[in-house]
């Protein structure tokens, strides 16, 4: 049957499966408790958090694309946010200029990391772990030395706008945007589009993926693998920096705590989305879906009023269950095609 073939082939796409699971859970939670559909208290903040975490996921995805890990995503975010905060507090920079400072800081950190990986040939795991330590020390030192309360609290004009505004305030011919979409999704969308475009369409992206798929073959195909490794880390650092700044905007100040909870979610999004830990294959849109899935589960459970004693248990169980379903379906569609490899 052609139709069933088509359906199975659509279903074997991880992104579709993820979207379906996410949507199903979304409806399930909402039907169990209407409060979950509250735009003000659930959906708007959920999407705002999702925006930041997705960008963190993309930062990790860039490292994963060449088969590396970036354990320092969180700390790169912290340093970048710190640079931004510093520029607002002590240099009086305008909002966009400060963001730029953050992004450049992230890029530089990424470049340094990549450079060390290439020059020392040490596993990126160790390099980024050590980087994380070093940056942790650096961040602590700066905040403790330069601020009275361990944070940069100056808010440039426009910061609250990015935090609080939803598309509902933008109307064209009387039709306004949905209230649930925060302004914060724009940086995420830009990041998604750029990263997606790069990996999907450009030579650079292809070379990164080839490098991740088979480093030796890439090298022997004339791809400048060393430079590509550095490039990937630069992207990773820049995106981490963006996420750090976004979180600073959401929280309202730039503190050392920014990024300290980034590491696990940074893997969760891309890996759930279908990005290979071993490199060579990325899922850009999937990263957003994976992030949304985890947030929907968490917030959904939370709105049911589940306390800490069951929240984590339920969170883990739902996650494993949802993923196994996806996997079972995938096995189902591929069992005959692949033989038993």
């Amino acid at each position, binding site marked *: 049957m052609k139709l069933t073939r088509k359906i199975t082939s659509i279903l074997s796409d991880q992104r579709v499966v993820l979207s379906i699971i996410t949507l199903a859970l979304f409806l399930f939670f909402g039907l169990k408790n209407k409060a979950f559909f509250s735009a003000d208290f659930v959906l708007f903040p959920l999407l705002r958090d999702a925006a930041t975490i997705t960008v963190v996921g993309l930062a990790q995805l860039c490292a994963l694309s060449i088969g590396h890990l970036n354990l320092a995503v969180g700390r790169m975010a912290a340093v970048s946010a710190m640079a931004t905060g510093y520029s607002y507090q002590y240099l009086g920079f305008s909002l966009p200029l400060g963001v730029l400072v953050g992004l450049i800081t992230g890029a530089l950190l990424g470049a340094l990391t990549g450079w060390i990986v290439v020059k020392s040939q040490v596993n990126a795991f160790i390099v980024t772990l050590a980087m994380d330590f070093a940056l942790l020390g650096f961040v602590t030192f700066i905040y403790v030395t330069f601020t009275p*309360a361990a944070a940069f609290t100056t808010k440039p004009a426009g910061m609250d706008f990015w935090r609080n505004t939803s598309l509902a305030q933008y109307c064209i011919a009387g039709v306004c945007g949905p209230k649930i979409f925060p302004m914060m999704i724009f940086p995420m969308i830009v990041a998604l589009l750029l990263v997606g475009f790069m990996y999907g369409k450009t030579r650079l992206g292809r070379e990164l993926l080839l490098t991740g798929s088979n480093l030796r073959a890439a090298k022997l195909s004339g791809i400048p693998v060393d430079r590509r490794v550095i490039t990937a880390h630069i992207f990773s650092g820049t995106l981490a920096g963006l996420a750090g700044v976004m979180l600073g905007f959401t929280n309202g100040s730039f503190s050392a705590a920014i990024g300290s909870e980034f590491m696990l979610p940074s893997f969760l999004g891309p890996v759930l989305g279908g990005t290979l830990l071993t490199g060579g294959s990325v899922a850009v849109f999937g990263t957003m879906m994976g992030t949304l899935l985890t947030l929907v589960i968490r917030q959904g459970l939370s709105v049911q009023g589940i306390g800490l004693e069951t929240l984590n248990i339920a969170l883990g169980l739902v996650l494993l269950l949802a993923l196994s379903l996806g996997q079972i379906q995938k096995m189902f569609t591929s069992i005959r095609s692949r033989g038993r490899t």
Partner: protein
Amino acid sequence: AGTPDFSKVKVALVPGGAHPYFQPWIVGGKQAVTDFGIGATTFNETGEWDQTKQNAALDSLAAQGYTAFGIFGVSPTDINTTFENLKSKGFAVGSLASCPAGTVNKADFCLSTDTGQAAYLAAKAVIKQMRGKGNLVHLTGNAVDANTVRRIAGVKKAIAETKGKVKLLTTITDIDKDLQTAQKAVSDLLAAKGKKINGIVTTAYNPAVASTEGVGRTKLPIKVIAIDDDKKILNAIAKGIISGTVVQNPWGQGYVGSYVLAALNSKACTMKKSGLYVDSGSFLVTKANLKTYDAQRLAKSKSILKDFKTKYLTCA
């Protein structure tokens, strides 16, 4: 005047994450329901010490119909943003157990221990035990937390007052994450410098437990003042392993806080001065007042409640 009707008010008490310190909030909140006829109080510790998660927890409580919030902000520098956000939705907001960093408080009020003051008190106590001279060590938590900064300042203030007779040997930060790290740090400290140390003041939970163990095991003549009244620490005081502890007043925060939140949220009362800071009290507990400190603390809570009713609130 009769008691106003609080039965429509649902109060949420939200600590930064799971920590023994906050457990009395639950009891205090329940007591407030019985005493004042508040609709309900709930306790939600799903914030897991992450401001983003705490914000999400607050939002989901709001979605569930809670209208008054007593909050221990994970990040003192960011919590004003959260307060503002909740207040803009018309909720009553109290900052409990910790005030926002800086001088501005965007919550309706802050009912908390002055963390700097508590640390100062503890340091004074240990200095007294050391007979006013010698080497002191300060063990505490996350270096880049505004509360830690206040505690470090409090201890330093007490030491400064000795005019150089007491020396701060070292301040060890970032050992409150887990007990193992704390115990390792204490053990290494005692091994390296044990003989030089005369007193230890701890202003975080895991280091307190760890230094109790460390000093007990090595039997070094070191005076220890811990923090909070975990059973383990009270036992150690009773056995004379450590000299004392500085306890705070979480029950009172939960009890009085719930009342004030209900009063504000039901529109029965308004704050005379929004963002007012009220000290919930800190108490030094030694072997001498081990049995009686709780009564003393209870009395303090009642008097705070009275102050609110008579001085800080204007009620219709």
